[in-house]
């Protein structure tokens, strides 16, 4: 195995029609870290994530995964070795939970026994009761569905996990619970995770490093502690907005 970065963006730009979505992104993601892409809507963080599994192809520059440009080789193989979790979860509504989780192993040709065992193992890993395996997604709560989404992404034991605001649509208590559990899960699994969020609190809580994006550009990459102390105008704007949120009750009615 290579010792270099697991994911590397080299001067990547992406443009749709006349809109420059990303410009000159250079960033490395190291083995086993949880890199958070923080930014507001339209800052290019989701596009950055999708460059990794080639749901988006760069206009210029290259993205390297495990030391090789991901533009070469089989895109299907690439995607099957990268877990992908999105905010809307996207569970297959006509499949049971078990079948959802076991789909990638199945198309990868695992034996039915091995798939069944793996599904049970994953349900337990994400804190779901084994009998939920035979339910359909519409029978689950939002939090349970997102747990299934994480389990499905982990099914074929990928080294890399891409997560696009996975907890964004959940109520605050469930979100808190899932963040905490996901953090401890990551302590055990040591996946290389790229995590998109617009929530600074989530970024500080989960990220080993925080990559701040604004208008298609990478502003800065900082550790959570450094981020809070940073003099960077964008970083401090985030910290201020976050603090304002916390003091919301105290500041009620002031402008």
């Amino acid at each position: 195995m290579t010792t270099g970065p697991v994911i590397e963006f080299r001067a990547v730009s992406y443009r749709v029609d006349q809109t420059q979505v990303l410009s000159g992104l250079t960033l490395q993601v190291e083995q086993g870290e949880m890199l958070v892409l923080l930014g507001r809507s339209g800052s290019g963080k989701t596009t950055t994530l999708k460059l990794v599994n080639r749901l988006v192809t760069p206009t210029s520059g290259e993205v390297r995964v495990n030391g090789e440009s991901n533009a070469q080789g089989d895109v299907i193989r690439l995607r099957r070795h990268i877990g992908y979790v999105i905010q809307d979860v996207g569970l297959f509504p006509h499949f049971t939970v078990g079948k959802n989780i076991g789909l990638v192993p199945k198309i990868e040709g695992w034996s039915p026994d091995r798939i069944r065992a793996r599904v049970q193992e994953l349900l337990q890993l994400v804190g779901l009761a084994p009998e939920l395996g035979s339910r359909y997604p519409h029978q689950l709560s939002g939090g349970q569905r997102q747990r299934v989404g994480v389990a499905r992404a982990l099914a074929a034991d990928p080294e890399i996990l891409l997560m696009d605001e996975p907890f964004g649509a959940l109520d605050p208590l469930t979100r808190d619970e899932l963040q905490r559990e996901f953090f401890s899960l990551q302590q055990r699994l040591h996946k290389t995770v790229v995590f998109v969020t617009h929530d600074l609190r989530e970024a500080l809580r989960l990220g080993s490093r925080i990559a701040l994006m604004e208008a298609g550009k990478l502003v800065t990459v900082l550790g959570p502690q450094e981020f809070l102390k940073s003099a960077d105008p964008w970083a401090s704007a985030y910290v201020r907005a976050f603090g304002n949120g916390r003091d919301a009750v105290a500041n009620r009615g002031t402008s």
Partner: protein
Amino acid sequence: MNVIRFILQNHAQVLELTLEHLWLVALSTAFAIFIGVPLGILIAQRPKLNKPVLASANIIQTIPSLALFGFLLPVPWLGERSDRLAILALTLYALLPIIRNTFTGIRGVDAAVVEAGRGMGLTESQLLFQVELPLAMSVILSGVRVAVVISVGLATIAAAIGAGGLGEFIFRGLAMVDDRVILAGAIPAAILALLADLGVGWLERRLRPQ
């Protein structure tokens, strides 16, 4: 009830014409599914094609059926046998609801589900056959249902070009100014349409995703 007596007296012929009718409808619907579903899938994946394809199917739909039978009459091979002609015409009419519903059904599949599937590494054909088609199935079937009901009605006109079916009674009854004969064709046709509607509707509900 004169009509019932007439039907009972001529039950062998009623049955024969009903089967003929069923044959015209079944074969043309099968052709329309074989052509319409792939076309619907194609235009769902290539948005540029959707306008021309749907517009063509729409135009066909606007041609009066008797005129369409007439247009097709001089076509070689087809014109030789009236049942071929009738099946082609019925197939053309059945296309629009099937193409349109396949297109709508596939386009209507939750974008997050498709994106998750693609991101997980499903190939385009796995995505189509395991995700998009099953999720679109009930919408596609409701198109088939409309197509079948239209065909049962239209197939009565096939008798005008000698393709048989229950229309024979209707045309004969019209010529003889005899209500009993007209109804001997119309009633079984209405029953066929109802049964087909119920049957495909049942299938549609069974295949509806959870």
